[in-house]
């Protein structure tokens, strides 16, 4: 195994003639991964919360809809979902909406599709965490809220959710880490996030080890930042006495 290490290649200008270095490509990739992770995480929290609440409502229809959503998105591989969002969904939409998506600049299109695919998929996981968090609360909480004359919505808003969300912060931290890693799947539809840049760098420089090492470190840094961020959130929100810490 004789491999010629050449870290200097990262500082060379890119071969496409654009005014960047290869390191600049990696930095762009890192920022794209961060942007995709954050946008998709926000979408996942919104979708997952709605579905998670739906699965605990008295209405049988709402529960069935939540169950169907989870079953659909948890039993199909993520890469298949990316491809379906990218190739199939624009065709099935009404012509105007489909044409609007297809008319976007390629980069925007990759990004929007990736946020949708990743966010809706992760939403199904967030949904299960929130449902477990709500179901773990004593039944008396809901009954007491309703007995006090709160509406169902008020009971969720002021009694159930404030505690449920705070107790599921550890599993949500894991989901946040998982979504940052799953964002790499976006490279398969063409988004040049960190993994996409890794492969592009190999194509242009033929220095796979340098490129892969940088990208892997990029993910490690991102993981570290997320753990610190969620640790901060946990400390600010933890329910006194409930988590035993």
């Amino acid at each position: 195994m004789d491999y010629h290490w050449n870290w200097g290649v990262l500082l060379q200008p890119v071969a496409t003639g654009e005014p960047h270095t290869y390191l600049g490509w990696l930095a762009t990739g890192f920022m794209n991964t961060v942007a995709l992770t954050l946008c998709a995480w926000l979408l996942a929290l919104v979708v997952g919360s709605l579905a998670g609440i739906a699965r605990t409502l008295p209405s049988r229809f709402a529960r069935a809809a939540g169950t169907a959503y989870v079953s659909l998105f948890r039993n199909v591989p993520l890469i298949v979902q990316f491809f379906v969002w990218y190739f199939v969904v624009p065709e099935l939409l009404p012509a105007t909406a489909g044409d609007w998506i297809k008319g976007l600049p390629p980069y925007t299109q990759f990004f929007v599709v990736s946020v949708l695919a990743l966010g809706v998929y992760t939403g199904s996981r967030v949904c299960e965490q929130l449902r477990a968090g709500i179901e773990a609360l004593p039944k008396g909480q809901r009954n007491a809220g309703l007995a006090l004359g709160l509406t169902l919505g008020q009971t969720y808003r002021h009694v159930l959710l404030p505690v449920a969300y705070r107790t599921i912060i550890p599993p949500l931290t894991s989901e946040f880490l998982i979504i940052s890693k799953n964002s790499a799947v976006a490279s398969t539809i063409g988004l040049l996030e960190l993994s996409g840049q890794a492969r592009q760098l190999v194509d242009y420089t033929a220095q796979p080890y340098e490129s892969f090492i940088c990208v892997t470190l990029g993910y490690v840094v991102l993981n570290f930042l997320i753990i610190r961020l969620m640790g901060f959130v946990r400390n600010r929100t933890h329910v006194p006495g409930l988590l035993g810490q």
Partner: protein
Amino acid sequence: MFEMDWHAIFQSRELLLTGMWVTLRITLVAIACGLALGTLLAVCATARSAALNAFARGYVSLFRSIPLIMLLLWFFLIVPQFLKALFDLPPTVDIRLVSAMVAFALLEAAFFSEIIRAGIQSLPKGQWQAAQALGMGSYQTLRYVVLPQALKAMLPVLLTQCIVIFQDTSLVYVIALGDFFRRATSIGERDGNLMQMLLFAGATYWLICSALTLLVDLMKRGRRSRVGA
């Protein structure tokens, strides 16, 4: 409106079945090797040796902090060189398949070890003490008392992880290995019906995985009623 052309899918059945066989082989190797290595790691993680604990912790966090796609790319870079250096491989060996199997086996070892470790730690301390009081050594305690109970307690979680592996194998797309999903997309590109092949592939995964999930749920329910809780 869109209609499925079942005839076209039926015509490509051989390619699709070959792909599914690749998918299944990766899944099975990952489960078998992952369980074996994962059990070893879990034993290391719970052993009374700081060095072994640190090794197990380091292994698990290393593999869990890298996206699966990067892991596959890494192993497709490293494994072929290793194999070339170590053995004189016949050209019939599919190097992509071997790389994917190694990557999945090592990754799933990390996931399985976390599950089994939780199983070991959930056992009451008395199990260890009783075994030791009966004169068993550490190996015998693990082999006959601790591991059988830990694995049994964690069976539903282990099975759920197997379903996750089956889905995750579709990511071998990035090293151009012809598994079920990769073949479905190439048939779609060849015949100009990518949309249909994608929907078909998604539906196939969905059917298999939700059937298996249902089985695991039934098993969980059966266990709970037997315990009488």
